[in-house]
């Protein structure tokens, strides 16, 4: 909201008054430097070494990077990561917008239902994955009991398409509540006066949704989109527990491949190189998203009200 320009502010003076200085960011900066930048530098250095976790790392120049460049599984993992991320955004965004806007209503039953719907978010990803792994057991789980609906042999994790569908579904089951919450908050903060004005002009529910609610949710869509993209690119636990990157390497996404190289094959050098690739890509994508959407300008959606 716009600050009153003619108010009786006790502070007088220039445009910087009332804005916190850099010192306020110091604790967070130190924390970030210690737990993100320092390890990142470590990982960068390690990507030029060969290390099995025992003894000392030995520098091996560009070996790890050359290995990665010619690695089919690595290239495939990047596409798979992109695909899973895209599926996540495409499926979760409309769902959570609709649910969020619905839940923004003041009715009691909506409050109760949204509280129930919120539960998956309280569970850890590992617990969620173990739960779904048991539920999707082809012989003793849901597909086995409801063969009529699922058809076939319930081998959901046995094909690439099936495994990707399961991962996307479990991701959506767990994370739409978070995004729903974001949209619920944003939808509630849309000034009622806009709807009242629209109603006077004869706008129906659909028209109000598309002409008022959606434009007002613009910044939230960007926020939630960035969270989904970054979350999607770093998805790991669901893959580890549900598919172990399989069948074969069909769901070996980049973070899982990093784990496999570092912690299963004990090749920490290549693992670090993959981690670095991931950091660069995730950073680039979110910078592009922030800039392309104009999110960095931080303009209010309510200018002029």
């Amino acid at each position, binding site marked *: 909201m716009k600050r009153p320009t003619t108010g009786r502010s006790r502070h007088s003076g220039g*445009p910087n008054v009332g804005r916190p200085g850099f010192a306020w960011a110091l604790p967070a900066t130190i924390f970030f430097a210690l737990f993100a930048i320092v390890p990142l530098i470590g990982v960068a250095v390690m990507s030029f070494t060969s290390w099995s976790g025992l003894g000392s790392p030995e520098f091996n120049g560009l070996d790890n990077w050359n290995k990665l460049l010619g690695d089919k599984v690595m290239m495939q993992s990047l596409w798979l990561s992109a695909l899973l991320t895209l599926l996540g955004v495409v499926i979760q965004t409309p769902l959570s917008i609709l649910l969020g806007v619905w839940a923004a209503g003041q009715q009691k039953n909506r409050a109760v239902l949204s509280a129930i719907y919120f539960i998956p978010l309280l569970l850890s990803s590992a617990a969620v994955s173990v739960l779904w792994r048991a539920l999707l057991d082809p*012989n003793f789980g849901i597909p086995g009991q409801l063969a009529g609906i699922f058809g076939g042999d319930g081998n959901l994790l046995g094909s690439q398409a099936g495994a990707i569908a399961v991962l996307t579904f479990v991701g959506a089951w767990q994370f739409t509540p978070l995004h729903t919450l974001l949209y619920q908050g944003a939808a509630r903060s849309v000034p009622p006066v806009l709807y009242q004005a629209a109603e006077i002009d004869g706008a129906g529910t659909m028209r109000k949704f598309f002409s008022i609610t959606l434009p007002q949710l613009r910044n939230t869509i960007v926020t939630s989109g960035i969270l989904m993209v970054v979350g999607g*690119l770093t998805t790991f636990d669901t893959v580890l527990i549900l598919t*172990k990157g399989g*069948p*074969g390497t069909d769901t070996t996404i980049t973070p899982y491949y990093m784990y*496999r190289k570092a912690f299963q094959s*004990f090749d920490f050098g290549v693992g670090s190189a993959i981690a670095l690739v991931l950091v660069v890509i995730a950073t680039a994508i979110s910078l592009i998203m922030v800039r392309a959407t104009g999110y960095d300008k931080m303009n209010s959606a309510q200018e002029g009200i």
Partner: protein
Amino acid sequence: MSNTSRWLKRAVAASAVLALGVTLSACSGAGGSTANSNRPENVIHVAVYGDAGNTVEQAMVDKFNATSKVQVILDRIPGANYQQKLQTIISTDAAPDVFFNWGGGSIQPFVKANLLLPLTDMIKTDPALQSSFLPSVFNAAAIDDVAYGIPMRGTQPVILFNNKQVLTDAGITAPKTWDDLLADVKVLTAKGVTPIALGGADQWPTLMWFEYLFDRVAGPDLLTKAIGGDTTVWDSADGKAALTKLKSLIDAGAFGTNFDSVSFVDGGSPALLRTGKAAFELMGSWEYSTQQTADKAWTETNLGYTGFPSIADGKGDGADLVGNTNNYYSVIKATRYPDTARDFLKLMYSDEFVQAQLGIGNLPTTTTTEKFLDQAADPAYATFQFNLVKDAPAFQLSWDQAYPQSASADMKTAVSQFFTGKLDVAGFISAMQAL
């Protein structure tokens, strides 16, 4: 809005992304000193592979703690990825003093990194630590003729288990030859029973089929040569014949179609066998204690077992075994209480330990084992296993233990891709050659 704060916002946004991206990789930096003084006082930690067999280990620990000043704490490491977890902590202060392993290839990197305590001195003080065990088994944990492991639990050959009831209902018997097996598969598929339960999601149960097929068709030498560096053996006529035979079994529907979603560790494939949805399961001897934990009465009456079928025109003996030669306890150099560790290890050849292991279906390899066979949970099963091991001309250590750990992930991927048809014979061969 001023330029600086815009820059700041952007930097913060970018940083947040970085932080998320790095979280996963940040934990890869292990290390630290291993001086004795950094280790906990008055306790030693014993790490074991967490499974149904832990009851005996806990009983031994309780017995030991009753009289010892330095207490033993049993850490049950959940079974899946045991080796990875071990390698991650073994060079840190959190390393267990004594740990479970498979001997041979599984401890070699630790010996190379100078992390393990040679047991020579312990054996000098207490020669029974060596002389109580079958020499062939004891020596499998010696690296360059120095002993690094004391046998514990037991030997674990891979056995073809069956559900007796299902076989009776189908009017068939457990197969003695490969052709018998193919015939059984035909009968069972016609009846709508999955012939063989397979925990394909874990990948290592799938590997067992390769281990036996290669042994029976090409003989035990092939793998010895392959590990020795001669990768051309994978491309040999014998190697191809083994793969073709296995392929025909898969194509006959022997494993059903959904094995990729079934896991042994989660209890999926043992349940298939127990509930009669499958007739056979090829599994290590621990299948017995797994089934016993799940349903004791069923295990006693319905769990059948035979050795792997022989293959008529193959080079390997029909009595050859694959599996885990034995499990071992090794001691780390950094331990604060080597004497306590030694006293604890002495329990591994005690009569009580041998009897307790036999009681849960394991087969210890002490020199005294034979005289206690009749006290086993199922004496017939214990005697069957004992004779299998005694009569086997060759006992191949599981490939994932025999190969360096670094090859294991790629090997298991190749194995599971061959079963799903993603890799053909040639593809599998080149994958194994690339290890």
